[in-house]
């Protein structure tokens, strides 16, 4: 138990620094949440209450903002976050078959977004702005253009090999 407490204190220290950097005003809320999201890949619930107190906001306000924006997630995400662009250009050039191919390849079923081993998260995004390369996916911000269902296999193979699978 002592070990968990230690880790939490480190997180709190880090969070205090982040808040100090952005100022403890309501307008700092989104930048602070962005930093937490970046560090943890999601927004742990206990940190949200802490942030609310620090910024002098109600937990409901923080929760409201955290659930409003697509960038924030309240559930932990996988090590590799695969975003499939489903903007108009990608959609017209077949982004949904790509999405299905990825889900099938990493064995995601029943509407789940993250694999049980916590390795892959698969989601669609509205537009990545690389329409000239449609269809586009990103894996942890690395952009892959003009992908095909066959290319998906190769890309995932490489990632799995890297993870020793």
């Amino acid at each position, binding site marked *: 138990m002592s070990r968990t407490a230690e880790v939490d204190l480190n997180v709190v220290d880090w969070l205090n620094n982040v808040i100090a950097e952005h100022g403890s005003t309501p307008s700092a809320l989104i930048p602070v949440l962005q930093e937490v999201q970046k560090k943890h890949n999601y927004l742990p619930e206990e940190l949200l209450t802490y942030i609310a107190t620090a910024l002098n906001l109600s937990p409901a*306000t923080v929760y409201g*903002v955290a659930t409003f924006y697509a960038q924030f997630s309240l559930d932990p995400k996988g090590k590799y976050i695969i975003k499939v662009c489903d903007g108009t250009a990608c959609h017209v050039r077949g982004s949904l078959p790509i999405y299905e191919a990825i889900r099938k390849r990493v064995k995601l079923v029943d509407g789940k977004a993250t694999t049980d081993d916590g390795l892959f998260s698969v989601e669609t995004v509205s537009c990545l*702005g690389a329409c000239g*390369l449609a269809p586009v996916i990103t894996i942890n911000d690395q952009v892959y253009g003009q992908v095909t269902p066959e290319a998906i296999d190769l890309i995932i193979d490489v990632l799995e090999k890297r993870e020793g699978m």
Partner: protein
Amino acid sequence: MIRNLEQLLAVKEKYNKAMKKQTSSLLLCAGTGCMANGAEQVYNALKDELAKRDVLVTVDYLLEDGCGGITTTTTGCHGFCEMGPLVRVEPTGTLYVKVKPEDAAEIVEATVNNQVVERLLYRHPNTGEVYQRESEIPFYKYQTRVALANCGEINPEDIRNYIAHDGYQGLEKALRLSPQEVVQMINDSNLRGRGGGGFPAGRKWAIAAAQESDKKYIICNGDEGDPGAFMDRSVMEGDPHRIIEAMAIAGYAIGADEGYIYVRAEYPLAVQRLRTAIKQAQEYGLLGKDIFGSGFNFELKIKEGAGAFVCGEESALIASIEGERGMPRPKPPFPAVSGLWDKPTIINNVETLANVPEIIRKGVDWFKSIGAVKSPGTKTFALTGEVANTGLIEVPMGTTMRHVVFEIGGGVRQNKKFKAVQIGGPSGGCLVEEHFDLPLDFDSLQAAGAMVGSGGLVVMDENTCIVEIARFFMNFTQNESCGKCVLCREGTRRMLEILQKIVEGRGTEEDLDLLEEIGESVQIGSLCGLGKTAPNPVLTTLKYFREEYLAHVVEKRCPAGVCQALKRITIVADLCKGCSRCARVCPVGAIEGEIKNPFVINQEKCIKCGACIESCKFNAIVEVS
């Protein structure tokens, strides 16, 4: 530190003089598109090859009395994303497309010997013609670049390069005029908002300038959320100093000393380049206190969006900067009167601002000589979808769609049949063949039921199902509706349900009337642009493609063969040998027949799983739409 025009021009002269001393330069596109295709590796390979031959020089070397050699620079987006990574050789203007790292040696060798690598030149996909110079390629030849003038020409991470292209001269000139004169110039130029609505920028500025307040703000709206549009990203990535200069001019004009650039979270490269640019501008004294010795102070901050389409709406964007959920507020009061933290605020789109420095520097008459009478200037369009040349283009307002799609875009991919162009993203509408000669400007498009929007142009061919596209856009707006207005929140949901029903083959003719009725209600009953325009894609497609909707609801048929649920699987009697293999694999027992006679699929029972198609050894089972 630059304190006056003389010092600014000195930086320009020195830079240009230094650049003239080199024999050639290789300009490599480092926009998001080309980077995704490996531009960085190409850049490193080019540098290695140049170094190997001992011809590589840097800008700094040339600036310090060095002479000769070849430079290589990464620039912003050249626009021709389909063909990336792109390398342009100056001064000849030769353009190499789809360059790979292993091509570097050949390119360097040819450049040193004044030759051309034929195999890397652009070949028109539909005509097969080969072009050497970038300026000769139809994609570039018919463009007029104002907002994008520097994109692909300069290194966005070097302020000197921007100054060498007459950068910051507009700001210097503006600071010698009175704020009223600057507002008057923008007003006279009739520069209209490029973010969608087409509201005159000068009028916005004039309202904000007239307010008495201790604090005012300038916001640059870089929350480019329209799926299928990326012009703002290209400007922010390729020419960030232009935005900074424009915002400082706007700040001076209305009396603001602080500005925010609101950038979409999905554009990390734009954020990084803007940060670098702001830092350089501060170092050169072009941001900060007492700019050009005029007494005018101006500071800029970057705000990263958190992923909400509705934040492109100005009052929602303000709410988001203030740390709240991005929900629109009722207008009036307009932000120009009471905006960020209740202070007068002007919000201009990236592309609108990109026009400002040149209007000030070159004058109102120059700007008005381009484009249409009521919509002067140029407009950028992101040309995507089933078109031969995808990419980012800029044309004078009022250019016809035929010109854009067929001359610049090179026509439909693989010479397929043109069906429609979706313009303006989820707020826009569909244009069809009868609109080919319609001038693309704010008023003409509005009259046709579409809108310029941010300028996304998605070309669709005969294999695109128009009903499915309408469903796609409705799914997007329904997702992005912030939930404040009942008609937008509930109306878009109901419309999506109906469209879902239609593509699944459960629609009726009455559904089409209902779609129109709800659509019109949503337009009337919504506070902001998102809701007011959300039904546009459905309403315009219902108008121009009613036949296709009817095919879905009456005949239960998808003419484009896209809607899975409307596909039918049948057995071609002539090819069927009656082996019964398919009947045995069918999971629902939908296939019946007698051995050695053609089998038949019972359409009522069939679940369209396709197992029979895979099992047939005689290719006798096919999917028809």
